[in-house]
């Protein structure tokens, strides 16, 4: 239990040993804050636990934030993290979220590790830098570049030549990141020279062996690119500035944070710090300024693809040893896939670098030259390459050197862990945090050009190309981060390394957040569509007020017609005007009917069937009243029947009213058989056997004990339909008339069948009356015939009383129809003329 086995060499070490005594590998993994190593990758292990990673980051916020040392701030914070892990106020660290606002901390130089593969892992990664860091601090503050970064920049030119030397370099060396896929593949195999040199001394054998093989086989050993990566690299994506490329590898943040951060932090960092001169070197000599549209669009406004982020600047990965990250792993070297990662970026940069990037590189090259000696001395293996980068550009052996950063920093360079490399911009912060970050990003974006102080001559973009260049319209999936923001690997064989490429952002991490901070360049149409969408969404969210149902227009015409007809009917009744002359001629059907009624023997009752609805009483009562008057005038006995439930009361009502002048008596002069249920079927049954069909009467005489109507003396001797003296059917429709004519007439023998009809039913019933063998023996239809009948009867009845009103109403109806027809035809014609 006392011994702890080194994860790399397997040899036992003391329980509290942080690094392996034998191989130098870090035993205790570096962590951000006090969190255990396994919790340092919230994206991997606690993706949903925001508090955990927040708590790990908060201690950083406790650090003071030098305003002028923006890039070195993380060093101080990391340093403090190693010492003080208490959770600071979120606001503090949030104030430093923006990558550009991260000032260098006072102890930044100390924290800056000088990534020495040989010693850095042991001494530097865990320990805050002291003396050297202090020396470098003033410079870092002045130039806003941490000394470690300066050293890194200095070393970069050694790798791929300086900004201008890049032109001199052979294409094979400085074009590893060529934008064309073919070139990229070829160049992706290159390894950074610094990596090549550094690990040779202390890197594990397996790693060094691998690198050797790679360098031998593939030329510029900037790092291998796995096949999968090489395939991706094939896209013509421009390389971002070196500042972004390097931190991306070394950042201690989980790669998902790096990915997220890249969106907001990259550009400002690049502009402020300028690209390292190695980037300039990478540019192929034949095309220092010519910028392809693709590369331009990607390099300027957009962060690079994930595969070109990290590996380009592997050196900054070393400065993080102060962090309690798994430095032992970092000391063991970088796997070739990681070195290939850095290679890709270089390759890309080497070719089509936009002018602005060239300027940045130039500026950074100058800065790095100033810083290199003061900051990068501790690293033996790296120092010659880094420090002399500007000068050593022409060194041939460095051209092809791998660019993978030193895995192990020397003691001096073992600054505070770069915990501030946490990409605060990219972190999926709560909304309130995101707002703060957005404000910072805006502030950064306002001053980009001023800080471009490069040695590179500004590229001259054609105006048309400048116009085509998308501005902030595209954000790469994974941006390069400043080297100080890069994640320090915490577990595995690369523990302690900064900028270790993680496949996770490429493969699995969601990428939406990296685009969040960009501004879209939209066309008017797109804007209109977006606005429409916004309005639609707003409409959906808006609470709909209850829309009252569509209000129908007032039926004025209906009212007018009703009023006209009402007045037309009432006016003659009330005022007696207008008065219409009575019919002067007796209808031709009336004479036979009158003769028929006059021929009915008085000893045989007359059956009157009230087959009409109460609604037709207005017409049929008047028409039937004339016939009933005639029958009663002849003192014929009346028997009523109805196939409708409402018929009996109608019959009783009319008989009582018409018979009142004749002093008729129920049971003696009339009797109601009542309701014959069964409709037309019952008519047939009744015609066949009346006594069997009707079992109950209506309003029978009170003196009659039995409810059987046939017990009435009036019906004595009546057992069949033919026993009646006449059958008169009063109906409004032709169907009932047809039923009686067809169903009952065969049982009537010589008994006449008379139809009292509404005017509308006459045309359909008349054929039964006018046929060769008439089934109807008499017909009385309409009010004019009733008026004529009453005139014949010599007694004014309902028909005469309604005659004037009937005439006026008919006249108004005729006028309305004429007007309506004229109006309709005129509209018809007018519309036809109008086309």
């Amino acid at each position, binding site marked *: 239990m006392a011994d702890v086995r080194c994860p790399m060499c397997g040899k036992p070490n003391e329980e509290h040993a942080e690094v392996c005594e034998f191989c130098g590998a870090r035993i205790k993994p570096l962590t951000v804050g006090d969190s255990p190593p396994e919790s340092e990758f919230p994206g991997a292990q606690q993706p949903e636990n925001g508090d955990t990673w927040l708590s790990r980051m908060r201690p950083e916020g406790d650090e003071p934030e030098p305003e002028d040392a923006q890039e070195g701030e993380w060093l101080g914070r990391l340093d403090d993290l190693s010492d003080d892990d208490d959770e600071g106020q979120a606001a503090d660290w949030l104030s430093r979220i923006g990558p550009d606002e991260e000032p260098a901390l006072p102890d930044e130089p100390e924290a800056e590790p000088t990534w020495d593969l040989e010693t850095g892992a042991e001494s530097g990664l865990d320990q805050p830098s002291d003396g050297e860091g202090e020396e470098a601090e003033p410079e870092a503050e002045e130039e806003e570049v941490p000394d470690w970064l300066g050293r890194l920049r200095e070393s970069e030119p050694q790798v791929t030549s300086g900004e201008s030397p890049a032109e001199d370099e052979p294409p094979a060396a400085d074009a590893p990141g060529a934008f064309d896929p073919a070139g990229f593949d070829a160049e992706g195999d290159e390894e950074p020279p610094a990596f090549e040199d550094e690990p040779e001394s202390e890197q594990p054998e397996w790693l060094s062996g691998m690198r050797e093989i790679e360098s031998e086989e593939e030329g510029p050993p900037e790092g291998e690119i796995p096949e999968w990566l090489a395939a991706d690299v094939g896209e013509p994506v421009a390389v971002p500035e070196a500042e972004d490329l390097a931190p991306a590898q070394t950042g201690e943040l989980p790669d998902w944070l790096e990915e997220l951060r890249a969106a907001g932090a990259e550009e400002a960092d690049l502009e402020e710090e300028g690209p390292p001169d190695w980037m300039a070197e990478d540019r192929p000599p034949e095309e220092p300024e010519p910028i392809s549209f693709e590369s331009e669009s990607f390099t300027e406004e957009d962060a690079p693809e994930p595969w070109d982020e990290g590996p380009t600047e592997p050196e900054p990965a070393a400065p993080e040893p102060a962090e309690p990250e798994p430095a032992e792993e970092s000391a063991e070297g970088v796997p070739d896939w990681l070195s290939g990662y850095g290679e890709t970026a270089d390759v890309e940069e080497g070719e089509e670098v936009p002018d602005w990037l060239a300027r940045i590189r130039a500026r950074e090259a100058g800065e790095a030259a100033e810083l290199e000696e003061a900051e990068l001395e501790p690293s033996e293996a790296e120092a010659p390459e880094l420090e002399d980068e500007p000068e050593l550009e022409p060194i041939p052996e460095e051209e092809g050197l791998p660019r993978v950063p030193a895995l192990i920093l020397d003691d001096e360079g073992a600054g505070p862990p770069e915990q501030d490399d946490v990409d605060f911009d990219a972190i999926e912060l709560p909304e309130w945090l995101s707002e703060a970050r957005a404000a910072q990003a805006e502030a950064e974006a306002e001053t980009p050009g001023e800080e471009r102080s490069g040695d590179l001559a500004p590229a001259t973009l054609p105006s048309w190309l400048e116009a085509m260049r998308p501005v902030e319209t595209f954000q790469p999936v994974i941006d390069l981060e400043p080297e100080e923001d890069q994640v320090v690997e915490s577990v595995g064989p690369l523990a302690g390394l900064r900028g270790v490429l993680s496949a996770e952002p490429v493969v699995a991490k969601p990428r939406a957040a990296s685009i969040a901070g960009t501004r879209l360049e939209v066309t008017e149409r797109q804007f209109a569509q977006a606005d429409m969408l916004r309005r639609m969404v707003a409409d959906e969210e808006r609470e709909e007020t209850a829309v009252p149902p569509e209000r129908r227009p007032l039926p004025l015409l209906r009212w007018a017609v009703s009023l006209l007809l009402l007045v037309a009917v009432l006016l003659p009744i009330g005022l007696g005007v207008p008065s219409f002359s009575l019919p002067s001629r007796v209808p031709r059907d009336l004479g036979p009917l009158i003769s028929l009624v006059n021929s009915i023997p008085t000893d045989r009752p007359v059956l009157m069937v009230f087959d009409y609805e*109460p609604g037709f009483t207005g017409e049929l009562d008047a028409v039937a009243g004339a016939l009933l008057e005639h029958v009663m005038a002849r003192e014929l006995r009346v028997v009523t029947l109805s196939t409708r439930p409402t018929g009996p009361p109608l019959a009783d009502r009319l008989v009582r009213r018409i018979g009142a002048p004749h002093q008729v008596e129920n049971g003696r002069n009339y009797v109601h058989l009542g309701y014959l249920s069964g409709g037309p*079927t019952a008519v047939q049954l009744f015609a066949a056997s009346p006594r069997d069909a009707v079992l109950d009467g209506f309003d029978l005489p009170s003196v009659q004990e039995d409810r059987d109507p046939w017990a009435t003396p009036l019906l004595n001797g009546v057992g069949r339909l033919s026993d009646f003296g006449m059958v008169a059917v009063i109906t409004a429709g032709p169907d009932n008339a047809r039923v009686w004519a067809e169903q009952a007439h065969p049982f009537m023998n010589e008994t006449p069948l008379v139809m009292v009809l509404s005017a*509308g039913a006459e045309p359909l019933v008349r054929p039964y009356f006018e046929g060769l063998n008439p089934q109807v023996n008499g017909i009385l239809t309409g009010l004019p015939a009733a008026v004529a009948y009453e005139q014949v009867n010599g007694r004014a009845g309902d028909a005469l009383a309604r005659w004037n009103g009937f005439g006026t109403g008919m006249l108004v109806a005729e006028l309305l129809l004429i007007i309506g027809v004229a109006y309709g035809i005129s509209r018809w014609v007018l519309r036809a003329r109008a086309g």
Partner: protein
Amino acid sequence: MTVEGLVGITLLVVFVILILLFAGLRDRWPVVLRPIESFRLLGQRIERAVEAGQRVHLSLGTGSVIGSDSAPALAGLAVLGKVARETSMSDRPVVVTAGDGAMTLLAQDTLRAAYNEAGAKDRYRATSGRLLAPTPFSYIAGLPVLLASEDVSVHMLIGSFGAEGALGADFGERNRIFVLAGTDDVQSQALLFATADHPLIGEEVFASGAYLNVGHLHRSSIRAQDVVRLLVVVAILIGTLLRTLGVGL
């Protein structure tokens, strides 16, 4: 058996044979129906009603089952079955009203069978088939309340109506809904022609089943009906000619 009876039976037998014959020949000699705009629009309006969650109302009229006026109501029942199947998934299934108790029972049976066939047995409600009132005018008097309260958008009158049928159609027109009205009574047809937007004239009310694809026997019966009609016309012409020539029959 009288001559009339013999002629009648013969005519019925011929009718049945023709119906079955044309039903068998429906593939070789498909029945082509004269396009009637009212039926075309009816399908559209029913679809809209289903989509809008509105009600389809079918009135079977005021005729009784045991009378001769039951024929249009029986045709209406065939339409009811089809419409009920089509609207079975609607939020507000079809409602059918009648002015006769027995017709109400038949309407309920038709609805039940239609829902069973549509696999929506649980959606059947006995109150979907209603006796609105036992007399014609009281039946019509109940229509405005029904049309308003049930949110009816398709108002079909397929049954036996008297003059009150025109008033029933007018109530639908007042509500500005789709009104299709047909009956067997000629006088009422004349009134419906004026008041309904989509009147069915003549025997069109009996052809509604064929137009709504209720069954192939409906279509074949239309063709048989035409054949018999031609026979009757020929018989009338022959009788008229013989009578004109003084030949008594």
